């Protein structure tokens, strides 16, 4: 990587996710590519954030260790620790796995395009962009609201902790400073200047931790939204593609209208590929090369095999009187479809490789946290601060899991429904090649594309349902124990 990044003109996925990437950089995550500024300064900035976060979480851990005798304190502190473990795990995961994130973002730098389908492509791209922006704003809003709620609820209720009095072996309440999180401080954070500093630092910590963890999840879900809209685009152009393919062999009235989106004297290349723009990923050569990742399927402009009697000397007459150029257009359309589908498959595989382990760690931590929360929930005895905090934690944890489960589920549904689009057009009028093409596509789509948490589980609504079921089961078991 060069030491100074020029903010070049980014296209594709990077451009769409620029708000997200900028937010990640400004909040201190290690996402340093794609934005301007000196790399060294960015690293220093992130390291400072990292130092503060590590400091806070170690103080939380020390507090946990110091108050481990009383069961209620222990479980409450453990839940807090696990909550913030999420955030630091995602932070460190991104820092370690930067290269994979950049690689995934760069996969869609330059996609193939076809003049006949450019309009549909642009439309679905616009839909994907709108959804990604909406999701980003919604999640950021929720994060800020949660942080505000957390800070606000600090001022309600009594600011005590439970401890065991060693003389009488009973549980007593000990006063602690009124701060959002129960932490150990080497200085007296009771009042005065130190109280203000500690309070401000804690507010910063709460806000930034939540922002870190949610930004990573939003990036993952945005990738999934993009992949789903690409699949919708492919489903949308299946019908005209089949019509085009049928026009090669069967007489179809009005076949000239099929080509109407192409202007008469267009000199556009049938398939535009990134061989023409070698400078697009110049600064990424160290990390990722589009060519290598595409398996170099794209060579010099490939004229496709023409099947119509090459050996008989001269092309066979087309029943619809299509020109040679229009025939090439049709064949290149099929190639466009298949290559675009493979591109989406590659993107989804890269997403799974990049973020799968993070999801696994998230689910691991969430499971333990939800078990403990179920235990805490059995001690709710009325509408008070305690009930609100437990329900808040519970809702937040379940919402995080629901967030990526619903998008994972949508990907599974979309990828296996491509076959439905293939079936819904006049494929029965097409040629043998067209029908075999439909068959191969249908066959491939029977195995739905899914994101798995490092192969341990599949991210879908079934996962969410099983998590919810497990929480209820633990709750029931623990209520019985009471």
């Amino acid at each position, binding site marked *: 990587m060069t030491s100074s990044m020029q903010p070049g003109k980014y296209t594709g996925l990077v451009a769409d996710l620029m708000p997200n990437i900028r937010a990640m950089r400004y909040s201190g995550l290690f996402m340093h590519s794609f934005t301007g500024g000196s790399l060294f300064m960015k690293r220093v900035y992130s390291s400072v954030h990292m130092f503060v976060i590590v400091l806070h979480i170690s103080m939380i851990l020390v507090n946990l260790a110091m108050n481990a005798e009383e069961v209620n304190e222990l479980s409450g502190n453990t839940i807090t620790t696990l909550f913030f473990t999420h955030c630091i795990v995602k932070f460190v995961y991104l820092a370690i796995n930067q290269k994979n994130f950049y690689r995934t973002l760069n996969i869609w730098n330059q996609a193939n395009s076809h003049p006949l389908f450019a309009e549909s492509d642009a439309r679905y791209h616009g839909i994907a962009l709108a959804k990604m922006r909406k999701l980003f704003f919604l999640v950021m809003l929720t994060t800020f609201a949660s942080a505000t709620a957390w800070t606000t609820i600090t001022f309600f209720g009594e600011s005590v902790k439970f401890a065991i009095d060693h003389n009488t072996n009973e549980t007593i309440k000990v006063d602690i400073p009124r701060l959002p999180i129960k932490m150990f401080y080497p200085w007296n954070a009771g009042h005065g200047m130190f109280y203000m500093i500690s309070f401000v630092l804690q507010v910063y910590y709460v806000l930034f931790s939540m922002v870190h963890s949610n930004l990573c999840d939003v990036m993952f879900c945005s990738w999934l939204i993009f992949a789903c809209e690409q699949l919708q685009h492919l489903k949308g152009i299946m019908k005209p593609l089949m019509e085009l393919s049928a026009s090669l062999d069967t007489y179809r009235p009005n076949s000239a209208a099929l080509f109407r989106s192409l202007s008469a004297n267009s000199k556009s290349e049938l398939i535009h590929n990134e061989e023409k723009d070698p400078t697009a990923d110049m600064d990424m050569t160290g990390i990722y090369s589009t060519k290598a990742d595409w398996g170099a*399927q794209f060579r010099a402009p*490939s*004229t496709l095999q023409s099947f119509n009697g090459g050996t008989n000397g001269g092309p066979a007459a087309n029943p619809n009187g299509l020109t040679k150029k229009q025939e090439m257009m049709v*064949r290149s359309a099929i190639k466009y479809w*298949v290559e675009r589908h493979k591109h989406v498959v590659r993107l989804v595989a890269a997403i799974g490789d990049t973020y799968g382990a993070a999801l696994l760690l998230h689910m691991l931590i969430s499971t333990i946290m939800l078990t403990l929360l179920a235990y805490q929930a059995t001690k709710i005895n009325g509408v008070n601060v305690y009930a609100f905090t437990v329900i808040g934690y519970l809702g937040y944890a379940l919402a995080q899991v629901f967030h990526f489960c619903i998008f994972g589920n949508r990907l599974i549904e979309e990828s296996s429904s491509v076959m439905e689009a293939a079936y819904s057009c006049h494929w029965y009028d097409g040629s043998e*090649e067209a029908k075999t093409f439909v068959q*191969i596509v249908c*066959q491939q789509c029977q195995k739905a594309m899914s994101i798995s948490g490092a*192969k341990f*589980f599949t991210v879908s609504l079934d996962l969410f349902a099983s998590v919810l079921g497990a929480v209820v089961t633990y709750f029931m078991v623990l209520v019985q124990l009471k």
Partner: protein
Amino acid sequence: MSIRPSENFSRIIRVVRNVAVCLGMDTYDPNYRVNKKTAMTLSAIIIYSGFTITTVIRLKNWKFALQALVLAGFVIQSLNKFYVGVRHSQKIYQIYHSVIKIYKEFENYPDPRYASDLHQSCRRLRTALIVASIMYAVGVVGMIMLPIFVSLFTDKFTFMHFHIPGIDVTTEMGAWITQAVHAVSMAIAGLGLLAGDSTIIVFLMQPFVFVDILRLKIYVFNQFVDIPGTRSESEIQRMLVDIMKFHQEYLRFIFRCNDLLSSIVSTQVSSAGVCIIMTIFVLMTSDWLGGYCFAIVLIPNLYIYCILGTFVENCSATIMYEVYNISFYNLKARHQRQVLFMLSKTQRTEMMQVLGVMPLDVSTALQVTKSIYSVTMVMINFLIIK
């Protein structure tokens, strides 16, 4: 690299064979017969079991019996591996031979990428074997050292679960002799399990070779059909048939591995699961220091095959995507149908199976872990009520 990939591979196998030879289990030899060393290993296992049973009967302590039962899990695994190794030595040799044949065939291709892929797979295999060996070494050394340290510092003698008849363990001399015998037997057990696992690792890391070579073949094929009109149908057909034959080779390999290893894998996964549950129970009811060590050793025991099975599953999934990568839109309908047939088979590739019903991968291990967790909760519930 100046050495050929098949040489590289043979070197790794030679190390594995050396370990196996120590135990008389060199099944890679086509002329392998049961020999003296094999008999010695078997008798060692039998003697161990005999001593344990006599000790348990003599002490009449049910907690001690439970602890001994946990260790019996390892005994069952080693007996199973031993049996499969001896009985199916021909199959092991056949699989090994087919792998060597692939190495020898593809290193001679003019395209240098084949050779470099084969070298990379050797590197991968070497890493996997080193990791497994380190794990076993750490486990065995830990289990040997722990009782020694504990008995040095706290004057409490912790033993494995057999006493040698005729040696009185209450005397200091007798105790140290018993400890020494335990250490030796643990070392031999570790070596034996490592030998068995090494063979399985060697075999289950080979699908990567198949994947890499298939990917290269498909890439060459795509380039072949990308240039229009100059290729005759018979040539295209020949290359396509070559790819399909190689895929069949892969399927045969998986089938043979499954056939050979199914009992070993099932026994290992189920016995590891049951032993973990028993260990947790014993740890909760009695005070057994070695139990913590055992629990830590049992977890990799459960997961190592599941992780290897996941690798195989990943390779099958990669093959499915690679077959879809064939530029079928450049082919005629006749060839497209053949690609279709291959594609539908790749979606239903057999993977390694546990007990014939569950696939051997980490999601099965997760299920087992969840069951262990539930059983533990029930046990805690039960014990607290008691």
